């Protein structure tokens, strides 16, 4: 809810927790999957699927919260104002596009990862590699790999923009929760922000 003083609550505590938890789990997932590819060998598989299940749970909670406690349109709609280059509401167009890209990468990774558990084997699921033809497993693996590669790209770009001096207010907001109205003025329409748009 916008406040009529210098500070605006941008991210509630639960949302900040979700963000940093998702970031930590994604990092674990990428490290466990990609370090062996570049020759650093360790027992990665169990850590990877456990982290994958944790990410699934966290993402589901995030989706429920976003759908029922927040306005998904705030993040998800690329409406005419944004595309016409006019000042944004709560999120700018690049921020919305970054969220969209992460959504695609994470959802593809999660769905394909869950399906692949049946082939690779986990303690709680009867292993049946013959449940699907090998070509289908290969396709699912391909999508899973592409999601991982997209995530590598996105991490670099996302962290870069997060630490740029002119964008650091957003990073602070993701840590402390609030952002100064003055920091939003340049790119955001404060009336839209106050409306929750």
């Amino acid at each position, binding site marked *: 809810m916008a406040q009529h003083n210098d500070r605006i609550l941008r991210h509630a505590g639960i949302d900040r927790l979700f963000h940093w938890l998702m970031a930590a789990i994604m990092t674990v997932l990428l490290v466990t999957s990609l370090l062996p590819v570049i020759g650093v060998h360790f027992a990665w*598989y169990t850590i990877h699927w456990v982290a994958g299940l944790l990410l699934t749970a966290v993402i589901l909670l995030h989706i429920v919260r976003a759908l029922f406690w927040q306005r998904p349109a705030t993040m998800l709609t690329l409406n005419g104002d944004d595309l016409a280059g006019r000042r944004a509401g709560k999120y700018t167009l690049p921020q919305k596009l970054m969220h969209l890209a992460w959504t695609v990468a994470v959802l593809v990774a999660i769905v394909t990862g869950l399906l692949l558990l049946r082939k690779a*084997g986990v*303690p709680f699921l009867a292993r049946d*590699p013959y449940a699907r033809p090998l070509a289908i497993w290969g396709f699912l*693996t391909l999508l899973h790999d592409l999601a991982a590669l997209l995530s590598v790209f996105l991490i670099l770009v996302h962290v870069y923009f997060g630490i740029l001096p002119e964008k650091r207010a957003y990073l602070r907001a993701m840590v402390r929760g609030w952002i100064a109205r003055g920091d939003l003025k340049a790119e955001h329409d404060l009336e839209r922000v106050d409306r929750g748009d």
Partner: protein
Amino acid sequence: MLKDMMPHFDLYQPDTLEAALDLAARLGEDGWLVGGGQDSFDWLKNRTRRTSAVIDLSGIAALRGVRVRDAGIEIGALTTLTEIEDDAVIRSRYSLLASAAGRVASPQIRNAGTLGGNLCQDTRCWYYRGGVDCYRAGGNMCYADTPEGQNREHAIFNASRCVAVTPSDTANALVALDAQMVIAGRSGERVVPAAAFFVGPDIDIRRMTVIEPGEILTAVRIPATWSGAQFHFEKVADRTTWDFALVSVAAAFRMEGEVIRDARIVCGAVACVPWRVTAVERALVGATRNAATADKVAQLATGGARALNFNQFKLPLMENLIRRAIRGA
């Protein structure tokens, strides 16, 4: 397709370790190292694997022989299994290794097969050996760990997508003896404890050992730690000769009278690496080496085991072999 015929490759026969290392470094993964050839030629004649070059190490005399060293011994990696089985020093001080070497395959294979080859040999999972693209072969699937998979010979411990087992009999004995593997490369020599030499699928699903391309296992060192201890080696296989283990046990006991002061129990063919049964080892310290102790601790051996569809028999078999090892059969 014609099988059982050697495909074409370039054959290199260095007579010094330095020359072999130069070749191994230059050829990298294209250079297939051969000791006695008892594993390599299967792969090549079946055409399941191909190589453009073979580096035959058998001409390097420096890699043969058993030498007394410090208080222990050093065995050249090209020493044949028959030489190890018959060696007087090994038989008197480390008879566990002599017993294990003497149970490998058949006399003909032991006459040509080397210790290094026995330790570095690839797994015998028949799906993998048959040339299917499983995880271990760089593919996307395990054919053994499936509802219909013929996995009678496969692992009950430490499966991580792959359920193949270590086929080496001498590996279990050397882990029990706290041996060290000497690995040479162009950048120098490194020494790796036997227990760390073997790699499970959880660490690297494509390899059985820590040897990198361009490296050569040159020797095995056995310290005096277990010299003259009480030993027991037993291997159960479908055939008494010329067969890989279904389950094997290599055990070493340091005794003070009737009391066990320290123990090593290592089982083969139950995991992708020699499987040290530390729960049983800890329970044995301070216990009397007899049937009552054996009955009490043997059931600890299979904690954490996960049987596949066709190898449940390995659990009671493993416990029984450990029982027999503790009470001296």
